[in-house]
């Protein structure tokens, strides 16, 4: 058994799969950094991702354009997030409850829309999904090339978004506003920042990112839509954000860790290895709790995390 595992072929396939499996989580967790930094914990991301997956698939199916599919996912994600923003910012509802509702609603609505269009029992409709783009020269490097430079476009884009997200949050006025609103909304308000507006914007960006994460699943990783296409990835993204302590680069490592755990599990099962891999799958969740303990002790949470802001209350 170990002879099967300790081969370059196995390692390359595991690491390449790690990057693929990390991508949807990375998209969504990068988006969730905006929301959580602005003070809003969105547990509805599971629903937003599913909405993204179904929108991408339907648009791509009927227009034959993957890029229009992506656009559909982004718009769907944004629209869906506006409901979450309305509940948590305007209605000042409890975010845990609102997020739970959004998850149930998003998954249900996606499945309903898909069924209403494609029917209940028909074979799953399929599309031509995003194909691998081999980056010239780089992909010819032995081992490294196969792991890093032989992926579809969305994967490269997700990793590019790490840099973009970092730039927006750390180097722009808008990023500063987001952090101010999440840290101390009253102070931000007194400086003339519109707290509600910034929170709406943060959640809409989050929705766009999560929509892309969902789109990746239906039109890049797979070429069809199923009800259970997201299966917990939205919740994992929330965990990754906490694990990453609201930092884009660390979110990348967090997403890769989850990717590695699932890639190893899939590959080990494929070669029939008799290793109880459940503990491996458990590991990222245990690590997230451990990181959370460290974060909470040092009070690194955004100051107004999960707290609605009202000008009236003191």
């Amino acid at each position, binding site marked *: 058994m170990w002879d099967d595992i300790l081969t370059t072929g196995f390692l390359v396939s595991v690491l390449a799969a790690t990057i693929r499996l990390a991508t949807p989580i990375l998209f969504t967790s990068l988006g969730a950094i905006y929301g959580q930094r602005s003070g809003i*914990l969105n*547990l509805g991301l599971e*629903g937003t991702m599913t909405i993204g997956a179904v929108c991408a698939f339907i648009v791509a199916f009927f227009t034959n354009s993957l890029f229009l599919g992506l656009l559909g996912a982004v718009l769907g994600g944004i629209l869906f997030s506006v*409901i979450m923003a309305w*509940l948590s910012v305007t*209605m*000042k*509802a*409890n975010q*845990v*409850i*609102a997020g*739970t*509702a*959004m*998850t*149930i*609603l*998003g*998954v*249900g*609505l*996606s*499945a*309903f829309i898909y*069924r*209403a269009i494609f*029917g*209940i029992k028909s074979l799953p409709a399929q599309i031509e999904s995003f194909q691998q783009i081999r980056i010239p020269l780089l992909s010819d490097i032995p081992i490294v090339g196969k792991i890093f430079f032989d992926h579809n476009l969305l994967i490269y884009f997700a990793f590019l978004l790490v840099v973009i997200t970092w730039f927006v949050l750390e180097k722009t006025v808008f990023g500063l506003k987001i952090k101010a609103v999440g840290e101390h909304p009253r102070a931000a308000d007194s400086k003339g920042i519109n707290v509600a507006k910034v929170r709406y914007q943060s959640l809409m960006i989050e929705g766009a990112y999560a929509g892309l994460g969902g789109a990746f699943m239906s039109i890049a990783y797979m070429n069809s839509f199923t*009800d259970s296409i997201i299966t*917990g990835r939205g*919740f994992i993204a*929330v*965990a990754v954000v*906490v694990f990453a302590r609201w930092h884009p680069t660390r979110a990348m490592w967090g997403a890769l860790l989850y990717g590695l755990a699932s890639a190893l599990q899939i590959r080990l099962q494929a070669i029939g290895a008799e290793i*109880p891999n*459940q*503990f491996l*799958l*458990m590991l990222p*969740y*245990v690590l*997230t*709790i451990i990181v*959370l*303990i460290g974060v*909470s*002790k040092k*009070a690194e*949470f955004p100051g107004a*995390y*999960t707290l609605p802001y*009202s000008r*009236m209350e003191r």
Partner: protein
Amino acid sequence: MGKTRIKKAVGSIWPAAITIIIALFIGAILIVISGKDPIDAYRLLFNGAFGSAHKISETLVKAIPLMIMALGISIAFKNKMWNIGADGQFTLGAIFSLSVGIYLKLPVWLLFPISFLAAFIGGALWGALAGWLKAKFNANEVITTLMLNYIATYLLTYLVYGPMMDPEGFGFPQTPLLPEGLHLGLFSAQTRIHMGIFVALALLGLVILFWKSTLGYKIELMGQGEQVSRYAGINAKRMMILVMALSGGLCGIAGWNEIYGVHYRLMTDIASGYGTLAIVIALLGNLNPVGIGVSSFFFAALLVGGNTMQRMTGIPYSIVDIIQGLVIIFVITRQAINLESVRMFFKKIGGKQHVG
């Protein structure tokens, strides 16, 4: 006195009823959009849930774990502890209680109470762990209970694929069956409804009494704000752990009920998302035990009837999920409107009158 109480109870049912009616109405619109007849759909849904003794039994079988878990969740929620880990606590309760049933060689009359207690302890430990992490490190319980759900799921998968797998099960991921004498009694051989329903109803009564006890009152008081409880001399940290233990313990008992009453063994997907649904039920029931009892019955009917509806009409089952999601959204917007806007509105009017 008696009359006003009844009036009050009826008055508190109205908002929930209206919530459901609006959700069903929007569901009906979606059904029309998908080109089907909503009246026909809801008739079949109703028939599917209550159309025969067998169907009523199925609805009750589903309502039992949902009700117990929602009661458990309500204890945490009243304390403003957002326990979303009911699935994990349910799973641990199931693991603990089944282990007692298949590994302890004791007389049956002893095994029943011990397994029941074991289920409570399993769930309580899983819940209290999150409570302790919050009390000790201020770790957000939403994230920890969510993580503990996944950890519990993988623990269960490990057990049914590994050390607890049925040696005569042809490699299926499931444990051996509980000995026959340990199955909760059935009402009739044709239906699955079991004596666990009495346990569920007893728990419902117990929770009603609990809210009248000093401890229950303290938990509620603490949920209303830190300052209040500090003045009342409540040890907030110890309370957090206790609340989560009680909440998780009840969810663990739901696991016992499901194993000893329905499955008689562990499999990989026993919790199957009951936890999320139980949150919806607890909220629709306004965290009130009787309200929870009624709404768990309603949602169980929706689940069971929804399957029939999909089979007979081709309307996707997911309409049931949509209705659930809408119900919570309406409940929270109603609360928000009640609390904030209405108060502000009256303040404004009051203010104007004052000026005038």
